[in-house]
């Protein structure tokens, strides 16, 4: 199985993260005087260091023992996930101080999710991907139930855990079937087998792919495997909700993209409409049910389900051009969603409220926060000036280019539906009368993080070329030359 030499230094960013996580736990244990809040900023610093170190391998192409690719795709996601983790730590700092116990383990677990997520994007074979996925998932199960005196948190964590274990079983069985029929777990190897004659193994293979789809569909919260999402989102401490909505989805999407691009692309005509169907029901359910929500966390749970539907549009129309559009949209979505969550966390830290109706009059009490949240919501709804418009436009256009114009149309339609429930929040903030008139104190660290995220939303929305180029370089590296030939033949 293991081919080539194992150069451990290639995994330096992951070692740094793991070491940093251990150090955070020990710091918390032996130097309690440090306090809870600085621990968060320290953890964030670790994530940023790891991101910086990952840049060493920019433009390199190598691998670790044939299990993990080190290429632009890996580097891109290493940086991306580390940044998400870092922002989650910053957003957590004050929240953890006020609401949670055991900060050391909390931040260590966030850093572990980054390792797991990176592994999912970097792995070049199924079992490494599975192990990474479990690392991510287990960290998130614990984090979800971290607020241990809150019943909702316990309920959400348990539900997430049980259903997640169930989904993992599906995934493992699927991996087994694919291995059994193709004789390899490496993505490239599977791709080679599928390019040839597969009549003998068709049924076992298709069942395997279907089961893998179920397992990964659970991780991205695609309908009908989304049942845990609202409860996990509502129960989890707010920064963890932000983390789930960003890193869990992005990592699973990165894995799906790589797996389908390298392994399953030769038989795209057989699964394209399944993916398209999943995309349609996911967009429909997420966006329609979101309309009915009164709790902002649940609203974001459903809205994030809808957002996954847009990403699945990119999978259904998979090609090198769509892949880059898909990742670009994902980057825009994650930046926007994190901005929205940071804003919600800041509000929650002030007031402890999370009902949409309780956001009334926010514009009078904290104009900058209200403006930022408004920008994030308009971006999520796909309004121009902001990331959501440009990236959705590019993604849907890419789908249309692959003969899925109808799917692009459906996606645009649901994107329009989503505007309604985002407007409801905006209306509360600007139209409602606040119970008190006083201004809130300014939380500088959170506002700093928020400003960076909002700036990212504007940059991607107003001039995406540089980001798009980086993304395209990274996605080009997952499409193997052989697959390009196959693509050419298909056309």
């Amino acid at each position, binding site marked *: 199985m293991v081919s080539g030499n194992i150069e451990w230094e290639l995994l330096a960013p992951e070692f740094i993260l793991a070491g940093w996580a251990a150090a955070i736990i020990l710091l918390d244990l032996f130097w309690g005087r440090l306090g809870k809040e600085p621990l968060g900023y320290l953890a964030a610093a670790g994530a940023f260091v790891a991101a910086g170190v990952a840049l060493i391998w920019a433009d390199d192409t190598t691998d670790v023992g044939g299990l993990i690719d080190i290429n632009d795709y890996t580097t891109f996601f290493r940086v991306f996930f580390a940044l998400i983790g870092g922002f989650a730590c910053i957003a957590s700092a004050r929240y953890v101080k006020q609401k949670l116990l055991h900060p050391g383990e909390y931040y260590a677990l966030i850093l572990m999710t980054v390792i797991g997520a990176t592994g999912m994007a970097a792995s070049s074979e199924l079992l490494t991907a599975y192990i990474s996925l479990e690392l991510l998932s287990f960290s998130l199960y614990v984090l979800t139930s971290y607020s241990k005196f809150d019943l909702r948190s316990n309920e959400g964590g348990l539900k997430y855990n049980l259903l997640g274990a169930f989904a993992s079983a599906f995934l493992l069985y699927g991996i087994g079937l694919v291995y059994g029929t193709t004789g390899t777990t490496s993505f490239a190897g599977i791709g080679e087998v599928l390019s040839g004659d597969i009549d003998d193994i068709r049924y076992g293979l298709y069942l395997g792919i279907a089961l893998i789809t179920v397992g990964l569909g659970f991780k991205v919260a695609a309908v009908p495997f989304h049942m845990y999402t609202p409860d996990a989102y509502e129960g989890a401490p707010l920064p963890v909700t932000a983390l789930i909505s960003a890193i869990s989805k992005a990592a699973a999407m990165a894995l799906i993209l790589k797996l389908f691009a390298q392994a399953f692309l030769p038989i795209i005509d057989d699964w394209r409409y399944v993916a398209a169907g999943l995309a349609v029901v996911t967009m429909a359910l997420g966006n329609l049910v979101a309309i009915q929500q009164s709790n902002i966390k649940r609203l974001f749970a459903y809205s994030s389900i809808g957002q996954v539907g847009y990403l699945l549009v990119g999978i259904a129309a998979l090609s090198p051009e769509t892949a*880059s559009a898909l990742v670009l949209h994902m980057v825009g979505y994650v930046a926007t969603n994190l901005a929205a969550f940071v804003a919600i966390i800041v509000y929650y830290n002030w007031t402890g409220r999370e009902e949409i109706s309780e956001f009334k009059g926010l514009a009078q009490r904290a104009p900058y926060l209200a403006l930022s949240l408004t920008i994030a919501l308009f971006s999520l709804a796909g309004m121009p*000036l902001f990331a959501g418009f440009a990236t959705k436009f590019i993604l849907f256009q890419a789908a249309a280019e692959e003969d899925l*114009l109808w799917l*692009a*149309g459906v996606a645009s339609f649901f994107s329009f539906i989503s505007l309604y429930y985002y407007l409801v929040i905006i*209306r509360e903030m600007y*139209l409602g009368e606040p119970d008190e008139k006083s201004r809130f104190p300014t939380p500088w660290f959170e506002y700093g993080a928020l400003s960076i995220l909002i700036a990212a939303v504007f940059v991607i929305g107003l001039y995406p070329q540089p980001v798009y180029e980086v993304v395209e370089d990274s996605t080009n590296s997952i499409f193997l030359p052989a697959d390009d030939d196959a693509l050419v033949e298909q056309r």
Partner: protein
Amino acid sequence: MEYVLLALLAVPIGCAIVFTLIPGHYPQLIRYVAFLGAAAMFIMSAAVFFGYEINGESGLQYELRWDWLENIGFFGEDGITLFLAVDGIAAPLVFLNGIVIFAAVFVSWNIANRNKDFFILLFLLVAGVYGVFMSQDLFFFFFWYEVAVLPMYLLIVIWGASSDFGTFTRTKEYGAMKLTLMLVAGSVLIFVAIFATFTEAGLGTFDMTQLREVSYDEDFQKWCFPLFMIGFGVLAGMWPLHTWSPDGHVAAPTGVSMLHAGVLMKLGAFGILRVGMDILPEGAAFWAPVLMTVGVTGALYGAVSALSQTDLKYMVGYSSVSHMGYVLMGLASMTTIGVTGSVLQMFAHGVMTALMFTNVGAIYDQAHLRDMTKFGGIAKVMPRHTAFFTIAGLSSLGLPGLAGFVAEFHIFVGVFQADYYWAGALGILAAAITATYILRMLARAYFGPLNEHWEGLKEMRIGEQFAAALLIAAILFMGLWPAPFVDSITDSVNSISGIA
């Protein structure tokens, strides 16, 4: 001069940024900045219009081109460019936007509640409108189109007013939500049509000058054109998708109503012409009878609805639907003179309806009432206001010498030229109904014996008078000397394939 178009985008956006930096407790400073910005836009817009050379070549002028996305993904050379230029059709509309925003700033002078946020959103809206008129790239055309729609919700919800009709109320939230959702729903169709056009052309570019050169499959044109027609038609107030328009315009504050009815609705008609008819001429020819039918229905329906309103603002709102119906009729005639008339009507209706909203706002601010049956003899206490309103009304009903006449005359000639006799006849009937409701409104509310309840009303503010004078100057200019408008528009209309 090539940077003048960029400046027309940069000034409103720059002002919006400056407003965000000014603390909210300096409202007067914000007003002065808004005044300076609007004055700059007015002057530059006028420069664009008067500097446009009519040379019979119908070419784009003031071209400016910056790459935005190129050679990446499925984008090829010139994938998406910030490509700004105006032709003879866009030039007068840019001028219109400059006039209306300048007037709207005067009318909005006294907004006291969060005037900083108001002007930020208003100037964003204006930037969006300029962007649509000037973009020669389909992506940015749509980008600015959405930018223009985006601020409306907040503008109406925060500064708007609800209407109480005794038995029921039309809240501003209702009007704002209806307007936003209907317009964005229309955008979905435009979105899909743009994807389809880009894919069908297969050029890897959104450059409209290149997309125009492609000869598209006829079947494709036939199913794609209605997407553009309906999508843009929603914003153009096309019957039966016009219902957002009266509710939205009534709920909006005066300055916003002026811009929205005055220029924003024109974006819809402009989109049908610039994107729909220019890129997909065969589709347009195929669907022209349908467009003519909905246009004439809208003209009649709007007029009859306006006739039955007693609320002044609803009357103006429905008259907008009626007048936009004429615009669509002119487009559907597919004749040079008819399409020229449509663009003339966009300008004429723009200044005229902005003037009407100014007047309605002026009286509502004092009386807090818009029911024309409750007024009477207002001319005695507000003579200038009455004169302004009368001029707007006379232009609306098509009195020769005023802008409305020039535009409607062209449209009707075009409609008859294209052998739509029935539509022409019904359109003229609608004009007669317009005369009825305008004159009846003037008679009821403004002339006759003074209702003593309103003895205390004062003349409209000096700023409002200035705004009205500016708009009237534009009405008279076009009404008395239409040549610059007609020449510049005809020049470019001739180059659109499929228009005879």
